[in-house]
């Protein structure tokens, strides 16, 4: 089975010519980005929807992720936008989202299965809107190159091990097998703050306002900065780009250069395809700290946009896509952890997954239940991207040797305060 990686408008043209147009068609547009094969999968699924609903035609605009993050907000602000979009910055886009509740046949289904995630999509103060559904839920967590551990003769730390345990083990392994990256963490505030929460950071004060710098947070920062000095982490990942630029370490991990890679469940599909069984890659539970043993939840959501001229049609498309059967197919083929409580409990079939992938998906599935409330709160906070960017940018400077830890703390606080103030003007 050949794995394709993109859907296309060309396939659509073909579909169009084959569909009987008995009714005047409503034209809908969906902006979509892909990490792996989701584009292809969603195109297939939309085709099936159109076959059942010949009066609606959905055109999928496949864009690079950069467009979703940087150009889509500008387009939405200008009043130009698609009818639906797959977005990641739920808080930032929430003010452009359409509340589908009045158009849905069964709002109760949405509340029951997407409940906790709808909170992420709502504007502050709103408690009833239903703007869309999660295309997948992601959880952050570590991947381990078990083969390297075996080669080095080091045992894997247990399920309740701490970050220090893992750091020690990974360094031993890397030294023995000459791997350049004992531990690699995605250069992302989202990843790092999950670790910080495990180390006891509370992120918010009693009123729900950001109060990022506390003992737990400082402990996490000092731990990671220490790793860079002691060689457990290489400066190349966090120290080589500026600001909040994202830098993943998946290429290094795929090349068997990393002992432990802190990333998340979205990597599974890619790993399955490119690593295959060149080495044993396994997911392990999030290491524990004084605060929790948690990862950060996340994921992308397909949401309806306020400016749509066809809310009823959009609601029909969304209802179809979010139905249990269809979502199970989508997540199953794209190798995603579902962001649907019903499916989470039942489990999703992954027919194309190798045994390694299935095992990893199982581990992450179980991690969902261990996510701490602080992590949910952070993910649901409308301005969380401001926090992620500020933390990553300043800690990155410390790692690159450009500033000291104390200055970074001050800057993180002022960055967050300044940007939120600007937003509220």
């Amino acid at each position: 089975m050949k794995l394709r990686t993109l859907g296309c408008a060309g396939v659509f043209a073909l579909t169009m010519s084959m569909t009987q147009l008995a009714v005047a068609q409503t034209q809908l547009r969906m902006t979509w980005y892909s990490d792996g094969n989701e584009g292809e999968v969603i195109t297939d699924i939309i085709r099936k929807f159109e076959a059942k609903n010949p009066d609606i035609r959905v055109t999928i605009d496949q864009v690079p992720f950069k467009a979703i993050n940087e150009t889509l907000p500008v387009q939405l602000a200008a009043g130009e936008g698609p009818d639906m979009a797959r977005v990641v910055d739920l808080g930032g886009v929430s003010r452009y989202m359409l509340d589908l509740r009045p158009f849905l046949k069964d709002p109760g289904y949405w509340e029951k299965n997407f409940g906790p995630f709808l909170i992420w999509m709502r504007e502050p103060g709103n408690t009833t809107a239903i703007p869309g559904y999660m295309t997948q839920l992601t959880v952050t967590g570590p991947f381990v190159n078990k083969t390297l551990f075996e080669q080095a003769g080091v045992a894997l730390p247990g399920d309740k091990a701490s970050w220090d345990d893992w750091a020690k083990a990974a360094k031993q392994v890397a030294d023995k097998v000459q791997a350049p990256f004992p531990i690699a963490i995605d250069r992302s505030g989202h990843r790092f703050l999950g670790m910080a929460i495990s180390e006891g950071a509370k992120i918010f004060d009693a009123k729900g306002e950001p109060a990022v710098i506390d003992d737990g947070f400082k402990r996490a920062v000092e731990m990671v900065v220490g790793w860079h000095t002691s060689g457990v982490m290489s400066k190349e990942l966090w120290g080589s780009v500026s600001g909040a630029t994202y830098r993943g370490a998946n290429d290094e991990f795929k090349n068997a250069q990393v002992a432990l890679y802190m990333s998340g469940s979205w990597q599974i599909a890619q790993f399955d395809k490119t690593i295959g069984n060149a080495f044993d890659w396994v997911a392990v539970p999030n290491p524990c700290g004084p605060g929790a043993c948690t990862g950060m939840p996340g994921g992308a959501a397909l949401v309806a946009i306020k400016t749509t001229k066809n809310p009823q049609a959009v609601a029909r498309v969304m209802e179809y896509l979010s139905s249990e059967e269809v979502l199970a197919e989508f997540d199953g083929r794209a190798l995603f952890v579902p962001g649907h409580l019903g499916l989470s409990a039942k489990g999703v079939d992954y027919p194309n997954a190798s045994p390694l992938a299935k095992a990893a998906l199982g581990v992450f599935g179980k991690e969902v239940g261990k996510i701490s409330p602080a992590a949910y709160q952070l993910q649901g906070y409308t301005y969380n991207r401001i926090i992620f960017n500020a933390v990553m940018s300043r800690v990155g400077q410390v790692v690159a040797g450009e500033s000291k830890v104390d200055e970074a703390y001050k800057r993180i606080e002022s960055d967050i305060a300044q940007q939120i103030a600007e937003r509220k003007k």
Partner: protein
Amino acid sequence: MSVVEALSRTRGGKRLHWTDYAAYGYLVLGVFLMFGPVVWLALSSFKTQASLLEFPPTLLPMSQKEAVVSGYDKPLPLFTVTLPDGSKKLMGQVRRVGLQAQMVDPNAPDKPINVAIGQRQPIRELAFATSNYTDPLRQFAFTRYLGNSVFVTIVATIITLLINSMAAFALSIYEFPGRNAAMVGIIGTLMIPITVILVPVYLVVTSLGLINSLWAVILPGAATPTGVFLLRQYMMTLPRDLIEAARMDKASEWQIYARIVLPLSLPALAVLAIFSVMWRWNEFLWPLAVLTKSESYTLQIGLNAFQGELQVQWQYLLAMTVLTLIPVSLVFVFLQRFITTGIANTGLK
């Protein structure tokens, strides 16, 4: 070495001087440095996704040899295995578990043995992963994007050539009040990078109702200061007596422009054409901001769909990058002889 030989282009002489060697050496190094990376790009575009990640990188695209062995339905990857007695043998790998690999001799497929993974070396052969090119072409509306890019490039270049040459004509042939101010104004716009006025131009385009139309990509960049500058400098070197004679023959200014000045400025126009084609073909940031519907996408946007949030599919990215290089290179090859003559008379006076 004679001054004339070193600094002018006329030279006789059959002996090669040391400066000749130095010159050729410099030029060869230049070719290697300038062209080498591009060749590297082209070769890498034929590698599979996995082999793109390996180190040390191979110059040529290689992939592992496989063989069909009876008794196994999938072809097995081939390795050279060092056996315990020191001899080397060609074997196929059935599976790998942990640190052990189960290998089998293709000629004796029913006797698999276990080999430590450190004892085997993969056998590679030259293989061109042409799927890097064919997959995306089949996958997305390549011809449509190509058509859009071609349309934008050609129309934009024609408009640019027309209005810039008209402006250059005005600024070079005539003396009129406000001429210097216009020059300063036009050259002044050289200093503004598009990124800086991205949002305001977006607002202007939105209020003109051009969003999503290819004209939103064509129009904003049509008037280029570099173009006006280049053409003006060239036109200033044209002999004025032709123009005077035409005026005495009662030719209108438009006819002077279209029938005399324009044809004489062909070299400079060719240079501007090359640049315009190059700029328009490679434009990415602005079209990305202004084209939201995929039917209007240009090639550069389509190609960059390979960059997801968390993954970059290098093999497709490289292959498509090579493809987009080809048209520009072709235009260049055809028009390049004009470049020196076209630039020759600019900037001097």
